């Protein structure tokens, strides 16, 4: 049996997957918290428990992400850009552009026909251009993050934010709430502002179709729809968008084990 593991320690969430024959078998996500080492341990324990394995059954583990250094049981680290590209390529071999909407930044990656990284760009670490903006406004609207997309999708008249900054945006959202603007219009306004920033990042790199999206932001379906209309394209969304980078790490674990 050949099981491989990929662990992606992000600034907000840590993700892990186990794969077998390049197929994702099981995934697990925890809040990264203050101790990344502990998060890595927790993910590994939960993953192997879910598929009834022991640590020794895992042939190789590769770590990636912001806190990759803390995955002490990984055989090596891999760049998150390469891992994201690999993961998405595994699910959508046809994808030529990948948008990764993460908590601290957004990344756009261009892939070759063989799934290799041709070029990429990373947004500034700006809350207004990342999934964090959604979190901030969800908090103002007192709604769960998972309800944000469906709520925004109901809006027919999204508001226009006067700012691209999440801090100023928060004040603006509070003002709109006090003026009686419906929640869905505010949520849709956030998606519009965010989609605008993400689209200009994509355009900077030049969009090559088909385009896929991953990262926690991809769970916000209304956001994906807004980006689609900004870019005038259809976007591929994987079933588990948050795990694409971890999946890529696990796939790299196969090749790096073979070469040793």
């Amino acid at each position, binding site marked *: 049996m050949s099981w491989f593991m990929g662990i992606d320690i992000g600034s907000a969430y840590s993700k892990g997957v186990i794969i077998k024959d390049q197929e994702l078998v099981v995934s697990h996500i925890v809040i990264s918290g203050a101790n990344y080492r502990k998060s890595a341990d927790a993910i590994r324990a939960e993953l192997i428990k879910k598929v009834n394995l022991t640590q020794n059954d895992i042939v190789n583990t590769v770590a990636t992400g912001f806190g990759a250094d803390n995955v002490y049981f990984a055989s090596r680290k891999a760049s998150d850009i390469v891992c994201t590209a690999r993961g998405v390529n595994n699910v959508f071999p046809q994808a030529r552009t990948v948008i990764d909407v993460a908590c601290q930044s957004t990344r756009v990656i261009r892939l070759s026909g063989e799934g290799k990284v041709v070029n990429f760009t990373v947004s500034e*670490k700006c809350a207004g251009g990342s999934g964090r903006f959604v979190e901030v406004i969800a908090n103002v609207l007192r709604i769960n993050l998972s309800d944000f997309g469906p709520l925004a999708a109901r809006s027919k008249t999204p508001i226009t934010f006067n700012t691209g900054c*999440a*801090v100023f945006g928060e004040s603006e959202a509070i003002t709109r709430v*006090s003026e009686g603007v419906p929640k869905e219009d505010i949520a849709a306004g956030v998606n519009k502002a965010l989609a605008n920033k993400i689209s200009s990042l994509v355009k900077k790199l030049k969009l090559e179709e088909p385009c896929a999206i991953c990262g926690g932001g991809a769970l916000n379906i209304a956001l994906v729809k807004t980006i689609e209309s900004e870019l005038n394209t259809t976007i591929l969304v994987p079933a588990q968008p948050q795990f694409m980078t971890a999946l890529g790490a696990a796939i790299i674990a196969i090749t790096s084990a073979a070469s040793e």
Partner: protein
Amino acid sequence: MYFAGVDIGSTMTKVVLMDKSGNLLTTVKGPTGPEHRQLANEVMRQALEQASLQIDDISCIVATGYGRLNVPFADRQITELSCHARGVSSLFPNVRTAIDIGGQDAKCMKIDNGRLITFVMNDKCAAGTGRFLEMAATTLDIGLEDMGDISLKAIKKIQISNLCTIFAQQEVVALLSRGEKLDNILAGLHDALASRIAALARRLGIEPDLVITGGVAKNRGMVRAMRESLGCEIFVPEEPLLTGALGAAILAKEIYTKAVARGETLPAKSRQLEKATFFSSEHQ
């Protein structure tokens, strides 16, 4: 003959009343008011009361600031940039560069003989404004007015690697939990804001004399950090919040004097201290 300048900022409303010789009669600062920001008229009423004047005694009122567009009792609206330039020059005649750091924007102005030549501003990103420190004060649970003095006690500056205000808050929490000292963290935060504003000012080119105004200029830690970042002497008015309103009052006096010199009178209107609203009517 009396003149008034009303500066409706995002957080504070400032009123300056002046007599025909340019002497200040009274100055009032008050909160613009939360959310609906309708307290501008209240601040004006206070100023009139202090000076024992009626609204109809004022020959000309100039409104400026973010909320200037809908001040029902004002005769003219003039941008805060022009008013600041005029106000700062009246206090520092040799000023060539003025930096106004407010709660939601930062403006750098080039001034020649009291006139605004050119400017750059940041109102797009909270990280280059006073809001950056406000958020830090909330996170650290200290008073906004105390943080500058605490930062001056620092032995070393801890560099804040995140530019974004929101991510910097997270970083500050992480630094605290790592056991870093509050004063050292604060010194780093002041330094981060100062270097962002210095970068903005450098786009314009810095020429002495340099004056800093706005609420953030009251923060001594910030003045020191700016001095270090810019590498030059910095002048701060005694009342750094009032330069916009002061400039507005001076301009009100000029407008009136010019009109009289042309043999015109300003349209006498019966003024009422209606509520000044923050957004123009289309938003309501």
